[in-house]
């Protein structure tokens, strides 16, 4: 007998698929979670970004046209050259990047990468991404400074999950790369970004 058949033979159940599905759905009804006031999404999200484990800085722009100036401000504040890893996302490439050195593949020691999150989650301050031809994953983990544009907020993590088929990777970034592996002491920038900068789009 194959390993598969052997294992499954020991796990036969009596419930019908419909009964299992009904039970699984019932287990999701009215889940307990830290309450988020729908009227205060913005405030809650911004408060989460200040948690020690998240520790993001925040800026705000009204339209996409203001994005390059916001990046210039960030670079100036952190003494960084105007060199940027920019994914081939048409919403980003449509901006005027004159004055910047732009590339779309992250170097092993990439200093600065920009990305657009699909949504931000007020409950946790998480930024939600999906991979695709215009959205590589590696730059968001290789760069020392991770700048993320957040066009829209949702209340809970469940609001950020996808209905239907999943892309190759669906991921939530909640802060900077951190470790407490040496004597429990917190260090930022363990493997990935040491700095997270969130830019909220819209008024």
């Amino acid at each position: 007998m194959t390993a598969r058949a052997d294992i499954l033979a020991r796990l036969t159940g009596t419930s019908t698929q419909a009964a299992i599905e009904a039970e699984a759905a019932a287990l999701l009804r009215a889940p307990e979670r830290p309450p988020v006031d729908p009227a205060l999404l913005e405030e809650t999200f911004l408060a989460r970004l200040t948690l020690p484990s998240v520790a993001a800085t925040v800026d705000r722009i009204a339209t996409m046209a203001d994005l390059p100036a916001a990046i210039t401000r960030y670079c100036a504040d952190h003494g960084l050259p105007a060199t940027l890893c920019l994914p081939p996302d048409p919403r980003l490439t449509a901006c005027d990047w004159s004055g910047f050195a732009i590339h779309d593949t992250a170097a092993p020691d990439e200093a600065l990468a920009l990305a657009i999150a699909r949504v931000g989650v007020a409950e946790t301050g998480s930024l939600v991404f999906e991979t695709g031809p215009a959205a590589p994953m590696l730059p968001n983990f290789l760069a020392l400074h991770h700048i993320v544009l957040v066009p829209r907020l949702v209340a809970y993590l469940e609001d950020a999950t996808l209905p239907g088929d999943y892309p190759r990777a669906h991921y939530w970034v909640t802060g900077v790369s951190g470790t407490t592996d040496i004597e429990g002491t917190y260090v930022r920038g363990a493997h990935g970004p040491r700095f997270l900068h969130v830019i909220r789009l819209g008024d």
Partner: protein
Amino acid sequence: MSFDTRVAEALADRNLKLAVERTAGTAEAKRTLAVDAFPDFDAARDRAAAIKDHVVANLGHYLERFEANATAAGAQVHWARTAQEACDIVVGLCKAAGAKSVARSKSMLGEEIGLPHALAEAGIGRIETDLAEHIIQLSGERPSHIIWPAMHKTREQVSALFKASHRVAHEEETIAAMAESARRHLREGMLAADVGISGANFLVADTGAVCTVTNEGNAELSLVPPRMHIVTAGIEKIVPSTDHAVHLLRLLSRSATGAPLSQYTTFYTGPKRAGDRDGPEEMHIVLVDNGRTAMREDGLAEMLRCIRCGACMNHCVVFRQIGGHAYGGTYPGPMGAVLTPAFDGLKQSRDLPNACTLNGKCQEVCPVRIPLPTLLRGWREKSWREGLEPASLRSGLGTWAWFARRPRLYRAATAAALRAMRLMGRSGWLSRLPLADGWTRYRDMPRPTEESFMAQYKKGRRS
């Protein structure tokens, strides 16, 4: 080495006590704060336990569903009955891919099945990318905690290890500088690896996704650049949907580190798609039984709820004294004391369920309400039934039972023993006691009162 010897060594190690206390103490305090900030935490734990029980009850259904969806997404699913079968599959895949080096993202299941050893035997280079796993790979040790595998190491020891092995090691003796040294060293290895190997925090049945959770981001950096991603996961890691995973994630991070959510939560669904700019060409998922179906059949189904948060050990008075290595298995602490007899056999590990005060703290903090003390008692009973307890204990208990069934004689014997103990302990303490040298070797026994509690109670002295 026997459990007793390992415990004696651990207790004599001053550094260990300090190191365990620093990390577990901090984790305990942070968990308390996180739980206090989540008003319905107790109800959330009930639901989490119900979700896991539902999955374990319908495990066959969900595994087939997961397999179908993961396959549809382009991943290849493999099944392994034993640790050996799982290692053979992984080593076979690495060899077929011509892999010279693999980057491994911390996985307790990988430790459980002995994957590091199997890769070494096959001559495949391995870099552990979790900072703590990197430390213990350098020191040639096993993890001492499931969340903080190097919690037994002091910063001075870590510094010496890094200086001996990193090409450009830190100069400043700070923890931040040491972490930076590891970042430089490990990044090279991750970007050059041929295969990335991870475990899974969750396997999502209705999408076929594999979920990993890290704070360092080492999973993503280990799994995205190489051309092959191999997942080894216990069959109990299944959840019905992403939203069920969300519920468990809320409890996992709070119970482990006190954070509302870990920094990086990633759902990987199959290999690189058309047009994707990064990701592996192949994704393989090895579903590992290794005793889990047997646990489900043999009264240990509740243990399959475990989401590996480590809260039980952080709150365990025994773990806090002896650390993780003394347990001698892959998993330490209360959950380890339940799992190790199932994996390694009760005969070899009957000391573990006995090394427990049954204070119930582990069950109190468990996010999925595993009745750990009950399961530990179950092992004790089984050990007794199978005659695994030493002859001295069996005859001693027999003698005690003989007296206990004869109350008059029992009271007379107790009174006589009290008189003898008072004579021996005139100074107020007894430094030696026949049949109890295991106790008096390390501490003195206080001189008992003149009469037993029962005798005093009968006389009406109730204060």
